[in-house]
């Protein structure tokens, strides 16, 4: 049977290929997509790729087979999509990228990108740091908990942060290890740092989970997180915000997973063949402890 009926009478079918469910952030992102699709009356074909690009590609292929109206996906990596995107194009199915962009030279392969810029996130964290320690005279010893080695967010957040503090010699990243975006590793690595580093002023964690793990390590070492060691991290998941409100974290750069509503608008537009901007950054704020307190109650994830 042809796929026309799968596209439904009037209802738009959206094929969405998610990276996986590797973190709370990701899950929130998935939820938001699923829910807003329902409320927007869009028929969603969802596929979880278990962190495997191959799976995402094969999922997109199957979407093409099923002749969905629009394809959206958050690339597990930025490269390696040309072939399948070409196929989508020849089948003239418009493609929307979410959360991460792809590095295809041919920008016509996808309609638009909706998501955040990891480098900017890193920059924001760095800039806050420079302000916070503007008055500081001596060295500021920073330890960094990186995300999964080789993953885009890890690379970019490291880069952005480095750029932001590049100017001033007093900021020294004395230790930088991967915490694999997880609490357990965050704690384990921080424990090691606390013993190997004589003086730590700041912890920069690529996501809240690692920061939360680190906090436990710091407390176990008899230090006060947020005071003895200042902590800045990225994401603003609920637990992170809680810790921020409790004064255990000093600053969080938001990375908003709730792209669903925006995505659905785009899908509708694209399906209707309207023009859309080629790049849309999700509106994201930054939280200090005060803002966290008021934001906390209405935090869904």
């Amino acid at each position: 049977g042809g796929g026309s009926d799968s596209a439904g009478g009037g209802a738009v079918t959206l094929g969405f290929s998610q990276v996986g469910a590797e973190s709370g952030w990701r899950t929130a992102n998935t939820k938001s997509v699923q829910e807003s699709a329902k409320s927007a009356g869009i028929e969603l074909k969802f596929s979880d790729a278990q962190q495997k690009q191959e799976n995402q590609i094969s999922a997109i292929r199957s979407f093409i087979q099923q002749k969905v109206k629009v394809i959206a996906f958050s690339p597990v990596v930025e490269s390696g999509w040309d072939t399948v995107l070409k196929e989508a194009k020849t089948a003239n199915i418009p493609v929307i990228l979410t959360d991460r962009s792809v590095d295809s030279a041919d920008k016509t392969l996808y309609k638009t990108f909706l998501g955040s810029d990891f480098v900017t996130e890193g920059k924001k964290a760095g800039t806050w740091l420079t302000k916070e320690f503007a008055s500081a005279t001596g060295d500021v010893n920073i330890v960094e908990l990186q995300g999964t080695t080789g993953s885009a967010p890890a690379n970019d957040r490291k880069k952005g942060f480095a750029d932001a503090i590049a100017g001033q010699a007093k900021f020294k990243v004395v230790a930088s290890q991967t915490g694999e975006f997880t609490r357990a590793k965050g704690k384990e690595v921080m424990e090691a740092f606390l013993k190997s580093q004589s003086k730590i002023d700041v912890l920069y964690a690529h996501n809240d989970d690692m920061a939360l793990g680190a906090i436990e390590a710091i407390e176990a070492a008899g230090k006060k997180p947020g005071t003895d060691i200042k902590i800045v991290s990225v994401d603003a998941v609920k637990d992170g915000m809680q810790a921020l409100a409790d004064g255990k974290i000093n600053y969080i750069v938001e990375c908003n997973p709730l792209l669903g509503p925006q995505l659905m608008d785009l899908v509708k537009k694209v399906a209707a063949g309207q023009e859309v901007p080629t790049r849309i950054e999700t509106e994201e704020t930054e939280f200090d402890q005060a803002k966290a307190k008021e934001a906390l109650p209405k935090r869904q994830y």
Partner: protein
Amino acid sequence: MTGHRLFWPIAALVALLLVDLAVKPSFFSVELRDGHLYGSLVDILRLGAPLILVGIGMTLVVATRGIDLSVGSVVAISGALACLHLSGLGDQNSVGGTLVAVAMALGLCLALGAWNGFLVAVLGIQPIIATLILMVAGRGIAQLITDGQIITITSGPFRAIGSGYLLTLPLSILIALVVFVLTSVLVRRSALGLLIEAVGGNPEASRLSGLRSGRLIWLVYVFGGLCAGVAGLMISANTSGADANHAGLWIELDAILALTIGGTQLTGGRFSLGGTVIGALLIQTLTTTVYTLGIPDTATLLVKAMVVLLVCLVQSPAFRAKVRRRRKSPPPAPADRPVKVEVSA
């Protein structure tokens, strides 16, 4: 002396520790902070505990010519279920509630172990593939339980399992120690050890000697599940939260590595629980070393590869024999060319 089964694993562990000592003299410093011991060595013990537990379970499974890939997922499930229950409690600090949570989690893990055992012993599916099923599905189950989020808990009693201290020592290592001792006693004082080694050594001969190998195999998988369950509790307790996505990821590989370093053959038969414990500690020491010495994480895997390779080589009799032959081989060198001896030796 070098004859003893555990000589080489222990030697390797000591060597690695000495390297740490050499590079970072502070590595061995252990001090008393708010009522408990504090220092890298303590961390190694505390963080090594889960691996030790999983390793012990895996050792028995491997001794029967089996393998259990699902332990990682079982770890995740155990933590997830316990934390889910705790998060629902009015007063998370109630010991009773915590015990219930623990009981529920371990109960489920026993069931999961039984499931593996069923596939292997009754349906006769090859262990690696039989447990692969739960390895894949188990992650899903864990995420289903936590709804993909990290369940954070505040329960003091529960957190103690992972990060608490008793008599200044980490509770987790004490638990692991108890399990180790109990298992060793059970296995060696009863006939279990012999029967397991027989089944692993020659299944057909064991069958013809009247062994009920089916039951044994079932038993070891159930036990493996239990060990993984306890490990899961520790891991989640240590971070006071259940991370269904990452808890116990790839722990099966480390466990197998540990038992091999400990001198247990993956082809079944003879096994050594003590060796597994050493192996587990070795692996944890290696991880801690990497963090402490600040080895760039792009190089971490290379270092790990090299160390493991070295450890396995010094353990391999074949290798030692070849080296010795090397040493012997150059003919007694004439007195006038001593330099050459230096080179060849």
